[in-house]
């Protein structure tokens, strides 16, 4: 029986056009750069715009035991109020919740959760592109928790974009930095010690 180290589950949810899948890819690739094990499962509502899109990322110190869709998440990034109920029921007491306050409408239960209000879409617009809102969130997550390092995230950007999108590299790196700078550092460290 493999007994793994800590596994950190991250859920991302939003609607099409917010860059959720790219954000998830960035986290996953950054985790590899940080020499961690990682698993990512994404799903999105097909061809029509405005559909839901979500992703599960698990980062761990050893082989990952968690299945592709996890029952409970250590942290979550919520970009839009649609479809957030799926995330809600998977949060545990103590889970981390990053909310895109620019867009989110509705009540957020704050008892027992570590909630961070982040005006991600605003920050993204300021950083140059509204489409990078989710990437902003990932930058913030990195600052808050060190789940993945900022350096790794920055390095992951070119790997995660298709060849014909290389012109977007700097835009996304800027968004990461903007998000990273928008919150306190190490508020809730993901890992014991400091491997990265």
């Amino acid at each position, binding site marked *: 029986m493999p007994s793994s180290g800590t596994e950190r589950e991250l859920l991302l949810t939003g609607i099409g056009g917010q860059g959720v899948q790219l954000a998830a890819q960035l986290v996953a690739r950054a985790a590899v750069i940080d020499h961690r094990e990682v698993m990512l499962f994404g799903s999105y509502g097909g061809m029509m715009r405005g559909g839901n899109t979500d992703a599960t990322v698990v980062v761990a110190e050893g082989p990952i035991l968690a*299945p592709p869709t996890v029952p409970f998440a250590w942290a979550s990034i919520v970009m839009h109020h649609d479809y957030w109920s799926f995330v809600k029921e998977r949060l545990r007491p103590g889970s981390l919740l990053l909310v895109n306050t620019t867009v989110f409408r509705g009540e957020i239960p704050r008892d027992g959760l570590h909630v961070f209000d982040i005006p991600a879409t605003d920050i993204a617009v300021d950083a140059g592109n509204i489409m990078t809102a989710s990437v902003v969130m990932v930058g913030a997550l990195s600052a808050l928790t060190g789940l993945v390092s900022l350096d790794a995230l920055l390095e992951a950007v070119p790997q995660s974009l298709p060849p014909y999108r290389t012109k977007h590299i700097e835009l996304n790196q800027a968004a990461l930095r903007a998000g990273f700078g928008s919150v306190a550092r190490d508020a809730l460290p993901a890992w014991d010690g400091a491997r990265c």
Partner: protein
Amino acid sequence: MTSQLMEGSGAIAEAMIAAGCRFFAGYPMTPFTEVLEHMAKRLPVVGGACVNAESELEAIGMAWGAAATGTRAATGSTGQGLSLMQESIAEAAMAHLPLVILNMARAQGDYFQATRGGGHGDYRTPVLAPMDVAEATQLAQLAFHIADTWRNPVVFFGDYYLAHTYQSVDIQPIDFGPVPAKDWALDGSSSGSGRAKLVSPLGDTKQRDNVGYDLSDYYMRAAAKTTAMIEGLDRLVDIGHCDDADLVVVAFGTAGKYVRYAVDQLRAEGHRVGYVRPISLFPFPDAALRDAATGAKLVAVYENNQGQMIDDVRLSLEGAVPVRFIGGLSLDSSGFGIAPDFDVEVLRRRIDAVLTDLGGTP
């Protein structure tokens, strides 16, 4: 090589290439499509060939032809496409062709087809069912080793989650030891030698003194070979927490990963529950399951279908331990994904219910 983030389908493709697969043919069908795309991109680069076949029947025919030359070859599909290939799979087994067939299934309803052989006759195909991308990269390689060792088609039984999950993997060629020389393989060189080779489901020797094929002799030998294969193959299984378990839960593939995860949690909470995850679905790890279940009050079977592997579980136990079905068909509406039921919480509830029936530890 260091770890790389790869989508499951890409990882399977790379593992096949690492295993020396140099021919692939396929026809798109979700979630098999991405394996084909990856092979179409990568095989030419490593000196192999990938053909975008015009149908599944043609795909497996092409793979059959390539395999007959001794080239490590694979094909595959999903659901309907796999069904179309059944004639060829059955007869490729009779022709002793080492061929790897990916069934990137949409649910687990193809268990019978894979393990009993959906085609005609008495052939059997070894079946390997990984629980995740990491295991898949190993089993995809093992499949070629088994195929070459036994000159028999091997089914790799994956699913939508496996195909579409990204994972950090480090794909290295695995050395499973030597395989028999392919002295039967065709390249034309034995033509005109007086001992020209023959690869056929009807026989394997030219009848120099006689006319036609001696089918009965050949079929009997093929059957004997199949029996030897079944006896010779390792029966792979992953067993956990069974030593003092009241309840043993059996599940395979992605479902097995969910069950493992749920059982780990329940154990951590003190419940006397274990799991058995068959990795080779055929031959089935019957003895290991029976061992693991000895002492248990109940064996529960979770599969994402209406009850198929449960037959093998019952055949393994032959009444020694009662068996209960806790799975069931469950599909998301797109028809692509597997199951809303693939949810650790749903599973926990089902297992909890069984535990309560058993008298509720802890």
